[in-house]
């Protein structure tokens, strides 16, 4: 068929096709663009027909990949042409060239609206199509009512109404407020009675979008959907033209079943029965046929039916029928069906208790891991990852490792991450875990992030039984000719710490260990050298009796690096050299690293974060999220066999602590030697031993999620040591909110610690504001709970978890917050005694079928009960002297202080209501501050603070705090320290309470654990 009359266009296309190369094509295009440009410039001579032709040419040039921005205006202006042919071109080309964010579209809104409300049916169609394809928010706001009218009025023909339905869907996606839920639900139900299947199909798509946000307004649509499904499945009264290869509109069937998946359940028994009959018929009646299109269409329906059955949580029998079907699919040769079989089996894992049946297919699934098609391999990997638990972890992980050597590059990263996570989550024993990770580093070192090897070091350090084994393994790998740098790091670290445990084995004398590690030095990067230097120092220290030759060798290395340009290396070399000349002191300082505090695996955390990273509302995703998280808890608890349900994630001790239950209880006690008794902070980089060890490499703080940090705070409530277990039971699952908070919760909290009103929390559905008033030891909060939506928030619950030093009473919180309404809930606070513990608000609500739960720290913090008070020299000094020595007066040297000018520090203290009294201290580098603290037990208590700074080193200072109450002195000192030391909030946006625990009035953790820092103190 020739282009009707547009000869110029055909000629141009032929010219382009005749171009021999890209250069010729560019010349021809440039010539044409020049021509078009000049023609557009003097528009007078341009007939509508020519204009149309040039606009088409532009679209063609645009498809070739050239920039045609200059012509956007011309395309848009054709929309207002009076005649159909030009208007049509205007609309279609505009919809192709522009997207909703282009400003040009705005000038067309009026014309478009006139076309929509006008009486010309063909114009209506053009306008609706364009708005449906590229309409944005502005279109939504100005056109939605008109489009709704077209859709529901029976005076318009189906061709207009079906376009109106999808156009409205687009506008709804851009701004959900344009569809008024109350008024629209009945209309929607009526639309489902529509006889024209084109209109019905479009309306069903609209319904899917609507119920995905608010199913509860559309219950009346549910029975109608079932009716439609029955009608289609029985092939009653379906016009021939709407059957596709003999199947009554497979698309409408799929859409209808999709809509049904957004309703949590089908309650009415009759409806439920009819629905199950239809589903049963689909499950049983779908045969494999020769014709590929018929096959695809019928299986499209079948897979949707499977999804619906899974969602409805049908009887066991029907479920096993589904699994059987899927089992059949994953074994067929047809790749599409196999792909979908694997994909749906993965979904199946999440929703039902059929894991055991699925496990029977493990061998088959592993075969698919070797399929020539990467799409299928990916699905197989996902499925294996999902079905892995303690019982089959060994098989699956080893299979993944084996596959890793041959896997294509595109999959390696994912593969190694998954293997690492599975090994950590389900390791039957720790030596296996170490094996797996070392193999992983060996085979795919590039894809093993630092988190992974840090984790190995943590486990090995915390488990004495494991140390000789790990050291021996590390030694083995060091013998390999070419090893990955990560392997050098981890083996050097382990050999440094535990190499001496191998003393009697062949090839493991200090000298041999040193030389095998030293061989690697020339090939490593600067980030590894510091680790090697530490290892040398440790080997040196463990060499008993001292070996002169080795000593000289090591000293010469230190000597050489003493002048290294990298400051970390230089410092270590200088310090180790100085230290190693001191003899006995070395043994104490370079002693084995203390046990690591329990912490959540950064890796698992990361994996969880990516899983919740979604903005789209979709039934399967929502379900999947709820399910993955609870699945985690289940698998964690299952093997515990009567031991307290210790959640690995909250308090990771070892990969499979539950299977090593004995270990677990003993280790938990001993692992608290570090003093992190009640407030375990798994992610504060300041306390991250490895992070410190590596200095500049500092571990990457995991991104924050809503409830996460509070998990760490709760166990500390009241300083009750038993609370450690409480941290373990905090159900991780509930914290997996799919609703992402707006803004940084931690930052909001920190801001509110300094001021008395502001926003505590916000997400797309709710905003929680706070306003507080403080008087002596009492305070009153008002929580403002504002619903941002046009539908009510239900199951609203606010529970206050007060620490033991605060008495808190929250007034009644309503169960439902009406649309766009704000409720106020007063909260009374009484401070009983000094403590830095923080109260937590456990807040949850339901939105759609999505439960949102967040735990928020409340800014009822120590400084709120302070009242600044100025003191004169006459008042200060007698007081200061009378409070002599501990426990009333405590002094500490604080390191790792955020460097800041003295003025800034004074401002900081003032902002915490500690009044800086200038000129009290004769030394201008010192600050003296005073304040009154109020609590029921202490009444009003004067507190005095003195801070002596060192102008030469702004990162350290000496702080003295005095008050008439020992616990107040301690708490206040720790509180001020928290404010002064470097808070890692900028790096890890997670609200990281630097909270060093009460039971540890020593220097900051970092000083304890970083050999470098320790040395600096000593020298």
């Amino acid at each position, binding site marked *: 068929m020739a282009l009707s009359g547009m000869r110029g266009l055909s000629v141009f296309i032929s010219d382009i096709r005749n171009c021999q190369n890209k250069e010729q094509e560019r010349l021809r295009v440039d010539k044409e663009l020049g021509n078009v440009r000049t023609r557009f410039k003097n528009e007078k001579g341009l007939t509508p027909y020519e204009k149309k032709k040039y606009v088409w040419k532009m679209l063609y040039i645009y498809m070739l990949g050239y920039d045609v921005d200059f012509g956007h205006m011309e395309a848009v202006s054709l929309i207002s042409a009076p005649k159909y*042919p030009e208007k049509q071109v205007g609309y279609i080309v505009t919809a192709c060239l522009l997207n909703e964010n282009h400003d040009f579209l705005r000038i067309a809104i009026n014309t478009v609206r006139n076309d929509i409300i006008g009486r010309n049916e*063909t114009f209506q169609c053009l306008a609706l199509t364009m708005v449906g394809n590229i309409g944005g928010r502005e279109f939504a706001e100005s056109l939605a009512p008109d489009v709704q009218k077209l859709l529901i009025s029976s005076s318009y023909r189906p061709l207009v109404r079906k376009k109106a339905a999808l156009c409205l869907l687009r506008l709804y996606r851009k701004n959900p407020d344009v569809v008024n839920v109350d008024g629209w639900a009945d209309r929607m139900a009526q639309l489902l009675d529509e006889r024209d299947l*084109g209109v019905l199909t479009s309306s069903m798509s609209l319904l899917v979008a609507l119920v995905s946000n608010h199913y509860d307004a559309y219950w009346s649509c549910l029975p109608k959907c079932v009716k439609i499904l029955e009608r289609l499945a029985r092939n009653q009264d379906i016009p021939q033209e709407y059957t596709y290869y003999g199947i009554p509109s497979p*698309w409408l069937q799929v859409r209808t079943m999709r809509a049904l998946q957004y309703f949590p359940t089908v309650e009415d028994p009759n409806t439920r029965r009819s629905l199950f009959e239809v589903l049963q018929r689909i499950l049983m009646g779908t045969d494999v046929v020769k014709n590929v299109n018929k096959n695809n269409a019928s299986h499209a329906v079948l897979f949707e039916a499977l999804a619906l059955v899974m969602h409805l949580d049908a009887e066991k029998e029907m479920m096993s029928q589904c699994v059987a079907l899927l089992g059949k699919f994953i074994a067929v040769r047809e790749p599409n069906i196999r792909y979908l079989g694997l994909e749906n089996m993965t979904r199946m894992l999440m929703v039902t208790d059929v894991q055991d049946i699925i496990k029977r297919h493990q061998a088959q699934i592993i075969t698919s891991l070797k399929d020539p098609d990467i*799409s299928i391999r990916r699905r197989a990997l996902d499925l294996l990852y999902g079905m892995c638990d303690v019982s089959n972890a060994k098989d699956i992980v080893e299979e993944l490792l084996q596959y890793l050597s041959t896997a294509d590059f595109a999959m390696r990263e994912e593969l190694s991450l998954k293997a690492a996570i599975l090994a950590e989550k389900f390791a039957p024993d720790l030596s296996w875990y170490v094996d797996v990770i070392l193999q992983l580093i060996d085979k795919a070192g590039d894809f093993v992030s630092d988190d992974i090897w840090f984790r190995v070091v943590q486990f090995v350090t915390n488990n004495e039984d494991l140390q000789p084994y790990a050291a021996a393994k590390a030694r083995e790998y060091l013998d390999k000719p070419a090893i990955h740098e990560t392997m050098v790091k981890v083996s050097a670290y382990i050999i440094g710490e535990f190499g001496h445990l191998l003393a009697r084995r062949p090839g493991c004398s200090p000298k041999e260990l040193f030389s095998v590690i030293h061989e690697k030095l020339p090939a490593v990067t600067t980030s590894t050298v510091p680790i090697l230097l530490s290892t040398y120092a440790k080997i040196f220290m463990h060499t008993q009796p001292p070996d002169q030759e080795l000593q000289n060798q090591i000293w010469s290395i230190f000597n050489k690096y003493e002048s290294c340009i990298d400051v970390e290396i230089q410092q270590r070399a200088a310090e180790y050299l100085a230290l190693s000349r001191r003899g006995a002191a070395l043994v104490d300082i370079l002693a084995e690293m203390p046990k690591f505090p329990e912490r959540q695996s950064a890796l698992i955390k990361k994996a969880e974060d990516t899983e919740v990273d979604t903005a789209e509302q979709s039934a399967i995703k929502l379900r999947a999220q709820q399910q993955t998280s609870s699945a985690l808890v289940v698998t964690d608890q299952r093997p515990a066999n009567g031991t307290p349900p210790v959640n690995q994630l909250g308090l990771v001790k070892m990969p499979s602590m539950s299977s090593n239950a004995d270990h677990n209880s003993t280790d938990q006690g001993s692992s608290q030697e570090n003093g992190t008794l009640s407030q375990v902070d798994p992610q504060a980089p300041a306390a991250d031993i490895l992070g410190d060890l590596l200095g500049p490499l500092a571990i990457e703080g995991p991104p924050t999620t809503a409830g996460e940090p509070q998990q760490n705070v709760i166990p500390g409530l009241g300083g009750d040591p038993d609370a450690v277990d409480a941290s373990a039971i905090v159900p991780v699952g509930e914290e997996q909110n799919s609703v992402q908070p707006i803004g940084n919760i931690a930052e909001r909290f920190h801001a509110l610690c300094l001021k008395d009103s502001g926003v505590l929390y916000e997400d797309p559905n709710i905003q929680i504001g706070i306003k507080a008033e403080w008087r002596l030891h009492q305070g009153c909060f008002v929580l403002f709970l504002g619903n941002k939506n046009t539908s009510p928030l239900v199951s609203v619950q606010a529970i206050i978890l007060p620490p033991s030093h605060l008495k808190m009473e929250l007034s009644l919180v309503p169960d439902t917050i009406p649309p766009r309404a704000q409720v106020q809930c007063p909260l009374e606070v009484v401070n009983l005694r000094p403590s830095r513990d923080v109260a937590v608000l456990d807040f949850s609500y339901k939105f759609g079928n999505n439960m949102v739960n967040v735990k928020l720290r409340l800014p009822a913090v120590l400084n709120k009960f302070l009242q600044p008070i100025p003191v004169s020299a006459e008042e200060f000094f007698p007081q200061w002297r009378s409070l002599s020595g501990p426990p009333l007066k405590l002094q500490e040297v604080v390191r790792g202080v955020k460097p800041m000018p003295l003025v800034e520090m004074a401002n900081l203290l003032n902002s915490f209501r500690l009044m800086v009294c200038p000129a009290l201290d004769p030394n201008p580098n010192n600050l003296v501050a005073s304040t009154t603290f109020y609590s029921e037990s202490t009444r009003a208590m004067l507190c005095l603070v003195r801070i002596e700074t060192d102008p030469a080193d702004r990162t350290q200072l000496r702080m003295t705090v005095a008050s008439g109450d020992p616990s107040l002195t301690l708490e206040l000192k720790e509180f001020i320290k928290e404010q002064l030391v470097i808070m890692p909030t900028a790096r890890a946006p997670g609200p990281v309470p630097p909270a060093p625990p009460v039971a540890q009035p020593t220097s900051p953790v970092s000083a304890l654990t970083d050999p470098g820092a320790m040395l600096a103190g000593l020298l």
Partner: protein
Amino acid sequence: MIQFVLLISRQGKVRLTKWYSPYTQKERNKVLRELSGVILARGPKLCNFVDWRGYKVVYKRYASLYFCMCIDQEDNELEVLEMIHHFVEILDRYFGSVCELDLIFNFHKAYYILDEILIAGELQESSKKTVARLIAAQDSLVETAKEQASSISNIIAQATK
């Protein structure tokens, strides 16, 4: 929801693009480059689905042309695969055994037809007959307008003779 529809020839030439989500020009070019690399490289006998940046691309090759539709992770792949076929059948019926050349020289027709099948990345009409009827009606509207125009220009021409 369908994020976009692409028609790419075996040589990597773009024959039609339709974007239902807002992509900038730069992003569009990037998508085209990336996806033609991924899809053209896939051998025969593999499945019709490709994971791509958190989405899935359902594609099918007809002679020298690849029809691709990018959908959300949780969408029904087979349904979309048959939408592609539905589109192809309608093109076939309209052009009478369609070939790549038809779509090159009449690319605008392909856009008209696609607009009658999909709007907002959702299926609008599943009856081939209905689509054919609507397209024919549009064609005749354009035809009539042209005849009118030519008759008017005839009149003018005669009048100015």
